[in-house]
């Protein structure tokens, strides 16, 4: 019988029978821990294994991205505990200068098509964007993975999601992604792997694929793949693969989308929210922190200025992106439009670093979550870089056509 993408990747990493619902022992090509979760991984590891070495230090990494550089003493302490452990065992640390761990793994060529990766990051399944089986896990699982190079894993069912039609020219990958959050909710692909097909996803560039795959978590899926992405050599599903479900979503003439509080699944057309006062904007996160995202924001901002009284926070995903933006003059230009440029990392996406909101402060953000309290006390609206840029110029929710 044919296999879906995830079944193929798992089958290449186990000797057990691979069938949806079966639990297998899976070999891990890469295991990582970040600055949240990492200290507990170290604690578990040392309690259980003392000074014993990890299975393979060269396949083990730390990535610090949440509170980078540390902004509390506790975080500094936690990061240092991970560094000490790493030094002792010869483990590489992608330190506070490097940016969002999952993105660094892609840039370093550690997360490649057909490989398996775990880490203490619930958005590790973003690696589906490059055809890699990435999974976020808890500190017990990751400590065990450090030591053994393995994890147990239940083979999920796969749901085929077919996008019909072409979105409107102004809509971008984030609009498509938010629309899927709206249409699929948290049930359609729950606990399943998704495979996205159709022209609308085939033509997405790398940044766009990252955007889509990063929010499969918000759709309650295990991971999402885009097997037929253009010019890629991703793992393909067999023609006779078995799907638990095939869902069609019509995206023709899709307009820009905005997720309203309190969840990424409360999504409406931009037109329904236009005019709402905005105090701050955030462009960045693992969902929209690539060069293409900032270039798109600049297209809108060029020739304009962030409205007085509005803060626009710009946080490149990684040091590489930062360097790229510097080279292209994009950071300078964004700065001149009034943006605040922060160092690479997660920024205000999670409580941990610069850019949190106060009570009543309305933020429009390119992040992936707007649950109450996640980025502070203010209500958060999720949108594309273009919509965030336009909204910061106007001081109210707005689209590119409004500036």
């Amino acid at each position, binding site marked *: 019988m044919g296999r879906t993408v995830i079944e193929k990747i798992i089958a290449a990493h186990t000797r057990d029978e691979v069938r949806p619902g079966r639990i*297998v022992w899976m070999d891990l090509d890469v295991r990582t821990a970040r600055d949240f979760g990492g200290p507990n991984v170290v604690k578990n590891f040392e309690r259980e294994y003392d000074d014993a070495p990890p299975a393979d230090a060269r396949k083990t990494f730390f990535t610090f991205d949440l509170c980078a550089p540390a902004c509390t003493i506790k975080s500094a302490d936690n990061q240092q505990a991970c560094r000490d452990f790493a030094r002792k065992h010869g483990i590489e640390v992608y330190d506070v200068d490097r940016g969002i761990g999952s993105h660094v793994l892609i840039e370093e060529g550690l997360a490649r098509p057909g490989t398996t990766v775990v880490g203490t990051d*619930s958005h590790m399944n973003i690696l589906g964007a490059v055809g890699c089986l990435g999974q976020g896990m*808890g500190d*017990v699982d990751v400590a*065990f993975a450090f030591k053994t190079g393995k994890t*147990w894993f239940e083979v999920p069912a796969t749901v085929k999601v077919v996008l019909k039609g072409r979105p409107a020219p102004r809509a971008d990958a984030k609009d498509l992604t938010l629309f899927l959050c709206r249409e699929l909710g948290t049930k359609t692909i729950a*606990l399943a792997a998704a495979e996205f097909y159709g022209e609308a996803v085939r033509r997405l560039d790398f940044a766009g694929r990252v955007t889509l795959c990063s929010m499969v978590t918000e759709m309650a899926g295990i991971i999402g793949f885009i097997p037929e992405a253009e010019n890629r050599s991703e793992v393909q599903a067999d023609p006779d693969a078995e799907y638990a479900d095939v869902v069609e979503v019509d995206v023709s003439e899709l307009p820009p989308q905005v997720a309203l509080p309190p969840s990424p699944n409360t999504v409406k057309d931009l037109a329904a929210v236009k005019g709402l006062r905005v105090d701050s904007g955030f462009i960045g996160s693992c969902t929209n922190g690539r060069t293409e995202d900032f270039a798109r924001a600049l297209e809108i901002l060029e020739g304009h200025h962030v409205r007085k009284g509005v803060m626009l926070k710009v946080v490149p995903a990684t040091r590489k992106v930062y360097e790229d933006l510097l080279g292209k003059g994009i950071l300078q230009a964004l700065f001149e439009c009034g943006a605040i440029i922060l160092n690479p990392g997660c920024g205000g996406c999670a409580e941990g670093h610069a850019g949190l909101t106060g009570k009543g402060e309305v933020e429009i953000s390119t992040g992936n979550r707007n649950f109450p309290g996640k980025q502070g006390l203010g209500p958060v609206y999720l949108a594309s870089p273009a919509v965030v840029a336009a909204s910061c110029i106007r001081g109210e929710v707005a689209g590119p056509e409004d500036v």
Partner: protein
Amino acid sequence: MGERVLQGKIWVLTDSRGSLIEDIDTDQIYHNAHLHITDTAQMGPFALGNLEGWKDFPKKCGAGDILVAGRNFGAGSSRQQAVDCFVALKVGAILAPSFSAIYFRNAVNSGFPVVRGLSLETWVSQGKLRTGDTLRIDVITGEARNVGRGLPLEVAPMSRVQLDIYEAGDLFKYGKALA
């Protein structure tokens, strides 16, 4: 070291209409107000402390009792305490049509028996499983029996991996036994 055959009195988590409660999340199981507690033994009194109609569960529950819940049990956060509070009460097992992925991982990793019974909803609605009944489950074969009513039932047997970890005690012990 997990037992192959579990037998205990059951508590069927139903709402006021008598249906199995679905999507019980980790805040209902173990509220975040008690997350500062680090000693497992002290977590018992807070189990189901936020689930309407079941707040007195820790007082009623006896060692070895089996909990029967609706689908997607353990949704929400990844907190291990939502498993540990039942360990503290010496609950014998949790039976549900499905568990959230993280909750299932946490329970398996700590050697706590979580068992899936796909037809639970039907049995409960047909009155084949009621609070107070005694249930016997063989985790290897999936054979189960409502002992008092003499009814044979069937649940999903533990997979090899879950069983290995269960028999070893927990994930770390299992890993060491391999080495």
